Every structure is written in C-alpha cells, then in structure tokens.
C-alpha cells in the first residue's frame, strides 16, 4: 500500500521545488500556491517534493533520481504539476514524460529568456517573472549614475550550467 496517495475526484497537484529544502523563496512560493489552491477548492490534494539539482547534469535529473521518483510515485497520478525556477523545470520535464505523460505542467519563477528554451514543450504554461539584467541596470543608472563596476556574486552549482550555456 503506498503511504502517499493523491485524493481522487477533487484534483491533485504536485509541486516540485529546487533543492535545498527550506530556502525562503521556495517556502514562500509553496505557501502561496497552497493557500491559493485551497481558497479555490478546499478539496484539492497538494503534494510537494524537491529535486536535488547538485547532482544533476544537463537535464537536471540523474538516472538514480528518476528511479527513486518512479518507486516513490508508482501508481500515483496528478492532474497538474507545478515547478519552481528554470532548473527545476528542466528536471521536471523528463520526469513528467516518464511518470505522468500528458500531465499539464505549470511553471513559475521563470524569466522570458529561460522560457524561450521551453516553449516547444507540450502542455506547458506558466507565469513569467521579470528580473532581467537590464532592469537592475536601469535602477543602478538611476540611483547610482556614477557606477563604473559591477561585482557579480554567483554560486558555482550545476544548476547554473544551462544559463551559462545560453
């Protein structure tokens, strides 16, 4: 008997979040997804899971991770899959196609540049966020017009690889 099971009949939603757990941005987004869905239909079943992106390659998903998800969600269906941030989106697409083919996928926290790479995927929609470089530069030019240098602080995780390639 599966311990985790989606409720039947009222709709079930799986929210896929980027590793590591407990990131403030993930927590806030998840809370608002849950509250909005519950407000729309209190009977909706909501499940949440994380995808460890540190180990992922270009697709963001290893064969071991795919096996684990297949075992964990064997026989469990979802009506909608929501994913946060572009790197999670890239890992979630092969996961959906393998476990839940045809299930609609809704993304969030994805900018227009990242969406450009995904627009050919079927049954995908979502809400685009701003946050492009030029907006930051506009602000800098306005409030600090004498700026000559930009010190760019980034992590070195594999999650950054697709963006770097683009």
């Amino acid at each position, binding site marked *: 008997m599966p311990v985790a099971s989606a409720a039947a009949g009222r709709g079930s939603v799986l929210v896929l979040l980027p590793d590591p757990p407990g990131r403030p941005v993930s927590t806030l987004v998840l809370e608002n997804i849950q509250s909005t869905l519950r407000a729309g239909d209190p009977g909706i079943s909501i499940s949440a899971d994380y995808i460890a992106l540190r180990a992922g390659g270009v697709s963001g998903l290893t064969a071991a991770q795919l096996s684990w998800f297949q075992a964990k969600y064997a026989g469990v269906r979802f009506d909608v899959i929501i994913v946060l941030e572009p790197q999670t989106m890239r890992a979630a697409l092969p996961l959906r196609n393998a476990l839940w083919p045809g299930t609609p996928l809704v993304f969030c926290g994805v900018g227009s540049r990242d969406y450009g790479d995904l627009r050919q995927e079927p049954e995908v929609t979502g*809400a685009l966020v701003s946050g492009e470089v030029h907006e930051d530069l506009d602000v800098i030019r306005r409030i600090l017009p004498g700026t000559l240098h930009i*010190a760019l602080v980034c992590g070195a995780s594999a999650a950054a690889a697709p963006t770097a390639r683009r």
Partner: protein
Amino acid sequence: MRRFRRGRAYSAAIGSALHEAAPRLEVIALTGLGLAELKDRVAALPQQTVVLVYVYLYDPAGHPMFVGDLVSTLSPVSNSPIMELTDLSMGAGALGGHLLQPSKVGGATARLALRILAGEKASDIPVQPANAGSYIFDWRQLQRWKIPVSSLPPSSEVRYRPFSIWEHYWWAIMLAALGAVLESILVAVLLWQRRQARETEAGRKRAELETAAARDEISHLNRVASMGELAASLAHELNQPLAGILSNAQAAQRFLAQREPDLGERCARLSKTSARTMCAPARSSAVTVSVSGGATSATFNLTNTAGAASKVAVASGGTQSAAVNTAFANALAVTVTDANNNPVSGATVTFTAVPVNGASATFSVPAITDSNGHTSVTATANATAGAYTVTASVSGGTTSATFNLTNTAGAASKVTVASGGTQSTVVTTAFANALAVTVTDANNNPVSGATVTFTAVPVNGASATFSIAAVTDSNGHTSVTATANATAGAYTVTASVSGGTASATFNLTNTAGAASKVTVSSGNNQSAPLNTAFATNLQVTVTDANNNPVSGVMVTFTAPSSGASGLFANNTITTQAPTNASGVATATVFTANAQVGGPYNVTATVSGLPTVSFALTNIVNVSNQVSVTETGFARNRTTGVWTSTMTVTNIGTTFIAGPVQVVLTNLTATVAMTGNTGIYNGIPYITVATASIAPGKSATVSIQFTNPNSLSITFTPVTYSGAL
C-alpha cells in the same frame, strides 16, 4: 574589462548580458567563492562599484547557502552597495531594486493550475506575466550609501524608515491630549458648580436674615399696638366715670340751687344721665327712675351694643406644626373685640399666611365671628417644609393675631447623590471622596434622621465596604466612606431608605495596583519549520499583587541573538507590546530563522519584575530526504487496535539531526492514532528517532490506531528534523 576564469560559466553568462546592456561597465566576477573569500573581496572593491548577488545555492563545500544569509554576512564588510533579485534579503543589508516578490509568484501560478483543474487545457492558456516585481528599497542602506529618496523610481516602496516620535506614539499623544482636554472641561464644570452653589447658599442665608428681620419687626409692631390700646383703654375707663361724676355733681348743684325743682324734668334728665353713666358695658340693663315718696317709678330697658371690630386675638392654635400637605391638628381660633374689648359678632376675619421659602398653608372657608366674637379656620400645610406665620385681621381693625406654624417634612422617600457619584481608586484603598446623599420626602423636602443603607452590587467580585451606618442631618445629608476590595473592576453602590421610592446610585471602579507578576498566556512550547511563522503569537499576562490584570504595561519580547532563533514582524529579535485591558501583551508574529534547533528561550520582560520565557523550536521538513514505509497493519482482535511498524530511511547524503518526527497528515477519516508522541498543528505525530539518522540508515517505530470501521488506513507522512 576583467577576464573570466574557468569554472565561472554562469557568472560569465550574466556578465556578458551586463556587458551587452551597458558596455561601459566593468564586470568583476566573484563566482564560486567561499564566504570568507567573498568577505575579503567585497571589502576591497574599487570605488563606484555595485555588488549584484544572483543565484547562490551552495558554497564551494556543498553546504546550502541562502541568499539572505549571504547578504547579511557580506553587507557589514562591503564597501559597495549590494543588490539582489528578490525581496527576501530586504532588511539583511541589501540596497533593494526592482525585486521579485515570491509571495505573489505562487498565487499567480496557482490560479493557472486552478484553470486547468477546472477543465482548460494547458496548451490553450497563454504564458503570461506574473506581475510579481516591485521597486523596493531599504531606507537604512539608502542612508548608508547617501542615495537620496528623490532619485528612486516612482512608486518605490521604502522600508525600514524609522518612525518619528509622532508616528511611534501618536496614539499615546492623542490620548494624553484628549485626557487633558477632558480634565480641563471637568475642572471648568466643577468650578462653575461650586460658584453656583456658593451663590445659592448666599441667597438662602440672605433670605433667612430678611425673614427674621421682618418677623422681629412684626412682633415689635404688635407689642407697640397692644401697649397703645392698653393705654387708651385705661384712659378711657378712668376718664369716663370721672366725667360722669363731675357732670352729675354739677347737675346736682344746679338742682339744689333751685327753690322748687321740677321733678318730672329732673327725672328725665337723670334718666339720661344714668343712661350715659351706665353706657360703657355693652349689655342690656334696666334703669328705674323713682322719686322719694312716689307711688310709682318709671323703668327704662337699655342695651349697649359693641362697637366696631377693632382687635383680633389668638384664642387657640397659636403655635403648632404639621407634616406637609396635611391639616394642622388644632384650628386657628381668634376672638374679635371692639376697642372696649367687647366681643364683636358677625365680623369677618381674614387669615393670611406669610410664606417663608415657600412654606405656607391654606385655610378653610371665610371666618365670621359668633356672638362671643369667636371664629376659627382649619389650616392645611402646603408641600414645602419650614416655619412661617399666619395673621388674622379684620377690616379697619387695630390689632391682628399672629399664629406661628411649621410645616414638617414627610416620610423619607427619595435618595439622591450629593457627591462622590463617580470615582475610582486602587484596590484595597479608600475612595477619595465620601459617598454623600441627600434624603428628601416626596415633595423634595430634606428629611432629617433618616437611616440610609448603602449596598454594593459586586461585578465579577469587584465591590467595596463602607463605614458606619448613615443617618441624615437637618439638611437631609449623610455620607459614608467606601473602601475598595481586592478585585479590580467597575460596579455600583446604591443608597436607599426604608420605604423610599427612589435610590441613589454611585458608579465606582476599583483599579488594579502596580504590576506585580508576569505569566505566560500562550505560545509556549511551539515548533515551526525554518523561515516559517509560529502558529500562535507569544502572549503574557501582567497582574498586580491581587491577580488583577494590569493594562498599559510595556512588555519586551527578546529572542536569542544567534543560533536557532527567529525574528518578529519588525525583522529584529526584539519587539515591545503594551498590555491591554485584560493585562495581556501580545507580540507580533514570530518567524523561525534558518537554523534548526531548540528548544530555545524567547523572554518576556517587564521592568522590575522576574522574566518569563517561551520554549520554541525551529524544525526542518526533511520529507524529501527520507523514505517512509510501513509493514502493513495487524488488528488485535481483543483490543481492536491496528498496529504497524514505520521505518524512516535517510536517503540523502547528509545526517538528519534528531529528534526525527513524522506527522501523519491526511489520516483516513474515523481512524485515530493512539500512542502518538503528541499533536502538531492539530495532527498527530510520532517520534521515530531521538538521535540523528546517518545517510543510508533507518529508524523504526511502532504505530497504533483505532479503526472502528475497519477502513484501509492511509496517511501522508511529513518528516521533520527537530522537536515538534
């Protein structure tokens, strides 16, 4: 332009984008550096540099690193302003900018999901902007980097701007001003009332003096008139006989001088003389005229009638009293005489009351004297108590009679508040003003000697005690001293008299004493996931020595400054809240920080009193790092308990800190867990391991349920690291 190093691909991509957007800017790549190295680098950046923090999920050692923590570490040492993508670093040291608000992102996405659940196809729903970005800046950072607020984009939100004294304490200032205005109005009203009372008292005394003077004048005139009448009467009584004697003697001399007196004429003259001589008493008498040696005599029947009514004297009822609106017991009786004290019949006597301060009387039908000169009327006191006079006089008379009457007050009927009607005092102390009342009869005349009973009507235990029993004085006044009992609160005290129709009501309030004790009301022993608000706000109750709630006491809540802790709504570890009318102070929402641990103490402090603490724990949801399985359920036919064994396996690569606890959400309806460790947010949970679970290791625990309907038992396990 700085050249990018190998392994810095992501920053190179963003750097390229920056260079494309602003080719004059030099990009300094700080990619994949550890925290210590980053601190050194941002402290030594060239002038006119802006630090942009982008995706930074892990440090080079592979440990998770949240951007907010990164910014809060770099900001104090950085020599340049730091900007970030989201508003999550606001308050941690980031300058701000056009920031993404994750709270809005989730809502926009969920609404798209709801459309799909409602039947729309995802491919038919166009991708749309989330509208989740806003211009947000930290006022402290603007000050630090000398950036004028006027240079910010329109509709920018500036956070953490310090409040002015007015913004901080406007309610207290308004309250104080309102209190001062009300107090001024109260003082003005009291002064006006005191002036009115003084003027009224002076008028009353002046009227009493005038009345007394008038009464003395009337008495003096009465005495003078009586003396005059007496003197006239004496002179008359003496002169008349003497004149008669003299006249008769002269007549006799003339008779004797005649040789042959004419007896008939003499007799006639004698009869006239005798008649005149005998006329003084007003009575009938017979005059017999005879001659010496005569055979017959002549008899005259004469009657002297009383003269005009002249004097009125009190016969009875001269001094008496009666209750208001009742008849005097004795009639007001007078005797009317003429100037020679002969009773005059048929004289109409007029009774006239001389009211004093409204006290007066009415009389029965007009009084006409009888044959003895007597008459009387019945007097009835009017509704006003007090002493006054009634005069009885006749038309053309020289002397009137005076009655001294007094209307006495009726039975005590009404009790009204004289002073001390509304007041307050600290519990177990005496009220400053005595509870004073005025007792009057049904006609508002003050009643003396009435016993007034003061009775407290306790409300939730708040009451008072009183001094000795109260008896009214001549003005109908009496008072008692009230002492508040040990319970704070508002209540009433009634003052009444036996058989009365209206009682007086005092509104008293016992106020709490000084704050003496602080106790935790709610919010103790809670747990919350990292970066998540605790479900119950922290509350304490402040009471005085008698356990009465004390309002207006400022309570300071303080969380630990390092390690597992959290922030209040003001994004600091300290907040203050005043106690309300129930003595309860409630802190703003407290949000766990990003560090697992606990229980740690959040203190609540009131100046001068012992500090109390809340035990809180920051937990972390590790459901994605574990595999939770169970062996299937076995039912005990005797006890009816369904039992299984739950196994939690660490499938991650790092230790899961203990205790490890599983919350059983979505448990099948009508199924109840027994033997659970506790309840978390209304859901049962069980402790699987008290110590840490290493990667690849497992922990097991037995779980039991009651399942009266023998349903298939399902649940969704949510695993936490940290005590719930």
